[in-house]
């Protein structure tokens, strides 16, 4: 309608002009022709009119339709570009979803930003640092005195449930009643703890997880029923709702009911975590200053324990361990892949833009403004980008779960990793940014002023786009080098680490935590007898060669760091060196086949009544005694009492921190002491930590069921849990490196492929554009070999530039990798040689075909096409 209107108006205008011209004496035909000539293009006016009338949106739709048509007409290009882009954006989106879920998803509690974590801080730092878990009395006082915070405490625990259902070990937490309040926990059945539950004299009550309730109570009413946990009867008062998971804990007990002396001592710090929720209106700064007031008052009141000690509060954050750098590393790596993909598409688009130069110049000549053409080009790349982005999201949606499942071990907070609106928004922004990245260069090449120059020059102008295209290829190669070097470093590191001697024989060894019958844990003599009995019975299982007890297992989480000195004149605690102390039974030497270097290992004669003894490793031997013979020397270990312990032997160093981590670990020295010499007062605590290690004749998992049956005991309540083979632990210690190596190899391969395709594309394009030049050269006497070497030189220039740039970047990147991943070494000559060989082969592969094609140019044909 509007279109008709403007047409009619223009007709009227023309008619008036014709009337005037006729009046000057022209014939109607001449008048009409002259009027048309004088007034310029009708279509152009209509177009400009439409621009004013409908604004940008209408012309955007027009551009969109045009872009879709262009892409449909070039299905090969469209497919290649969108596939490349979909893979790139898909990979980045997957990594972003992981980063977003693991690092940034809020804690699964209401108003998580109001939650804080408290720690004790001392002025003096010891060898363990200056931040500490709370002493229980300090928590009680802070809870009572704080006005700006509701404080709650919890403490890790665990034990054996022997009823209802079969005996099994479960994780538990001792918690203060406020924990459920501040975390906003809802209950499927029953209630939270109340302050009345929180005292040693209260009736023993327990809260169980939704999972435990399903497993052991079948989802029936559990309130008021009995739960036997560590040989003690509790009444179940609550079942938490299914959406509440607290670090895998299945049983919650009231911390105030725990009568352990360690909870009453202000000097003791038995792993109590304190969390708090800010009261409405309170700020974290207010809470901090209040806490420091409370801390100062307690320091005056209890100088023995609290002098130089105060409390600090920080926002509560999910604990994701050392994952942060790894995730950022992977996100940067996929971003590099995406960059390469963009550079590749940019150079493809550029080639097309040059090929379309005449079309664009024609449109400019017909009246399209430059802005209009730029917009048209950007719309085209935008369509590509958004299509690729949509496909990329589909790729990410399909790949996300498998990727999370492939993560070595278990990805923390994996439940929070999914494609949500944040990820979608990111993917959309990513596709727009990518399309700008690869679209801007071709768009800016749209003809500006020299329209008729382009039209007249025909298809011969190569112009500045050649340098630009080479720049894209050079940067693709440089980025690919970056990933190749990283992959090479991982490969070299993995090879090096795998070849290291773990210090023991990891084959055919099974280790599992063993839970003694809780009813036996009452008196030391019973405990010792029970362990001895367990060892005897497990040794009887067919296929078992040797059995030992051990508290901290190599390459498994958990260690016991004790300070030592070589004389009675101990330096201040923060200057005492630390060693990993492992409590074992004598057969441990045979179970893990620990090489004995000097003296003897612990044996049956080392008892509570005999002299305390230790066996040390190579590292401790050389640190404490240098080149001298350690056997017979004495060590002062404050945690083992004031009297020194006698060194009776030296064994090989064991890579306790795994293949990768051990060399850089801060505490490496090791000592072994007899479980038999653990004093009675510590025996109960130790018994909750002990594992058994079993050497078998064949595959160790084969003896697991007979072992379990033998361990179960008379009361049917002794269990094995956290069952692993040493081989699994050893391989697990490299799992992260292996995973990173695999990912980086894939990234590097993709990068190399893309860069080769880019190189190939640009070379073919250049050769194609220069066909006639080749023809002239050949007519003037150049041989095929000359032409081939000319093209190869061209390729070599780009590869060499990319290589140099890439190596420079890789050297910088390698330093970052070095600090991010344990056990990495800077890239060596071998890595660079390997990388250049791979790159050289790929580059040659990409250049051969265009070079050969150039050499086959028929001079006559080439010249005739002019």
């Amino acid at each position, binding site marked *: 309608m509007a279109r008709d209107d403007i047409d009619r108006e*223009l007709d*009227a*205008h023309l008619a008036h002009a014709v009337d005037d011209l006729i009046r000057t004496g022209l014939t109607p035909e001449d008048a009409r022709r002259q009027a048309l000539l004088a007034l310029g293009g009708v279509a*152009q006016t209509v177009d400009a009119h439409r621009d004013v009338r409908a604004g940008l949106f209408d012309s955007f739709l027009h551009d969109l339709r045009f872009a879709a048509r262009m892409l449909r007409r070039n299905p090969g290009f469209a497919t290649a570009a969108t596939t490349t882009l979909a893979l790139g954006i898909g990979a980045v989106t997957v990594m972003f979803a992981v980063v977003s879920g693991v690092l940034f998803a809020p804690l699964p509690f209401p108003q998580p930003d109001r939650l804080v974590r408290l720690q004790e801080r001392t002025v003096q730092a010891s060898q363990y640092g200056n931040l500490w878990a709370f002493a229980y009395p300090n928590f009680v006082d802070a809870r009572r005195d704080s006005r700006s915070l509701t404080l709650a405490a919890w403490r890790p625990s665990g034990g054996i449930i022997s009823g209802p259902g079969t005996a099994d070990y479960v994780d538990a937490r001792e918690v203060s009643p406020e924990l459920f309040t501040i975390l906003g926990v809802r209950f499927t059945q029953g209630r939270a703890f109340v302050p009345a539950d929180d005292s040693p004299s209260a009736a023993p009550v327990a809260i169980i997880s939704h999972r435990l309730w399903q497993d052991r109570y079948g989802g029936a009413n559990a309130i008021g029923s009995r739960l036997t946990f560590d040989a003690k009867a509790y009444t179940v008062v609550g079942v938490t709702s299914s959406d509440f998971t607290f670090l895998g804990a299945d049983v919650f007990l009231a911390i105030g009911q725990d009568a352990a002396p360690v909870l009453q001592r202000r000097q003791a710090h038995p792993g109590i975590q304190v969390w708090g929720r800010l009261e409405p209106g309170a700020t974290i700064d207010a809470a901090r200053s209040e806490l420091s007031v409370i801390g100062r008052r307690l320091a005056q009141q209890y100088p023995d324990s609290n002098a130089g000690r105060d409390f600090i509060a920080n926002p509560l954050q999910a604990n994701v361990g050392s994952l942060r750098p790894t995730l950022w590393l992977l996100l940067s790596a996929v971003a590099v892949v995406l960059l390469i993909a963009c550079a590749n598409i940019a150079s493809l688009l550029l080639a097309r833009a040059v090929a379309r130069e005449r079309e664009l110049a024609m449109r400019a000549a017909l009246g399209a403004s430059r802005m209009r053409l730029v917009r048209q080009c950007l719309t085209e790349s935008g369509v590509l980008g958004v299509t690729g982005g949509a496909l990329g999201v589909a790729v990410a949606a399909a790949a996300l779960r498998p990727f999370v499942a492939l993560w070595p071990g278990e990805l923390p907070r994996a439940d929070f990793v999914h494609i949500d609106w944040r990820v979608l928004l990111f993917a959309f922004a990513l596709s727009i940014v990518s399309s700008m990245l690869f679209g801007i260069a071709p768009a800016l090449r749209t003809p500006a002023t020299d329209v008729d120059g382009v039209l007249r020059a025909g298809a011969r102008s190569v112009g500045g786009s050649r340098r630009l295209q080479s720049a894209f290829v050079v940067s693709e190669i440089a980025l690919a080098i970056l990933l190749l070097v990283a992959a090479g470093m991982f490969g070299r590191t993995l090879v090096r680490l795998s070849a290291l001697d773990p210090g023991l024989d990891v084959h055919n060894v099974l280790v599992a935590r063993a839970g003694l019958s809780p009813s036996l844990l009452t008196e030391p003599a019973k405990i010792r007898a029970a362990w001895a009995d367990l060892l005897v019975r497990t040794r009887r299982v067919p296929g078992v060669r040797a059995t030992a007890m051990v508290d901290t297992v190599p390459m498994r989480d958990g260690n016991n760091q004790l300070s030592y000195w070589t004389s009675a004149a101990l330096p201040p605690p923060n200057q005492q060196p630390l060693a990993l102390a492992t409590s074992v039974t004598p057969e441990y030497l045979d179970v893990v086949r620990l090489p004995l270097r000097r003296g003897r290992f612990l044996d049956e004669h080392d008892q509570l009544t005999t002299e305390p003894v230790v066996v040390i490793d190579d590292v401790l031997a050389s640190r404490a005694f240098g080149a001298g013979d350690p056997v017979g020397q004495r060590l002062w270990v404050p945690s083992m009492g004031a009297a020194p312990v006698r060194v009776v032997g030296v064994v090989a160093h064991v890579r306790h921190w795994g293949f990768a981590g051990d060399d850089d670990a801060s505490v490496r020295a090791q000592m072994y002491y007899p479980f038999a010499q653990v004093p009675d007062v510590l025996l109960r605590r130790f018994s909750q930590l002990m594992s058994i290690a079993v050497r078998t004749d064949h595959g160790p998992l084969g003896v697991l069921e007979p072992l379990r049956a033998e361990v179960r005991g008379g009361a049917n309540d002794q269990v094995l849990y956290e069952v692993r083979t040493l081989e699994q632990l050893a391989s697990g210690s490299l799992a992260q490196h292996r995973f990173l190596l695999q990912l980086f190899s894939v990234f590097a391969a993709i990068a190399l492929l893309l860069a080769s395709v880019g190189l190939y594309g640009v070379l073919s394009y250049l050769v194609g554009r220069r066909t006639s030049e080749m023809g002239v050269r050949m007519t003037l006497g150049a041989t095929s070999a000359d032409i081939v070497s000319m093209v190869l030189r061209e390729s070599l220039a780009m590869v060499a530039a990319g290589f140099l740039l890439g190596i420079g970047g890789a050297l910088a990147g390698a330093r970052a990798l070095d600090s991010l991943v344990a056990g990495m070494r800077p890239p060596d000559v071998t890595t660079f040689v390997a990388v250049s060989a791979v790159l050289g082969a790929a580059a040659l592969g990409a250049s051969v075909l265009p070079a050969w094609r150039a050499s086959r140019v028929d001079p006559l044909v080439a010249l005739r096409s002019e």
Partner: protein
Amino acid sequence: MGKTDVWQGTLALMILKTLETLGPQHGYGIARRIEQTSGHKLLVNYGTLYPALLKLEQEGYIKSSWGVSDNNRKAKFYQLTRTGKKQVEREAREWNETTAILARFLAPDKA
């Protein structure tokens, strides 16, 4: 070479002023009048005229209706609205001020 395209910014004012002087007028008439008034030093391309007319109409300074011209042809007639009249005054004043200022710069030094 003597004829210049009219500058976009001033075209609106010329159209408004023309309509103020002539009363309702069609596009062709406006173009002719501007060319005549300029002593044929300006050339009004209808590629710039009609978008400018549309823009002025959208801004509410002029309104249009179909009518019959002196040549007995159907044509769209434009006329000033009330705000259009105010706009002419305002723009004319601003333009005069601007040219007066510029004139001082360009005038030969009187000191």
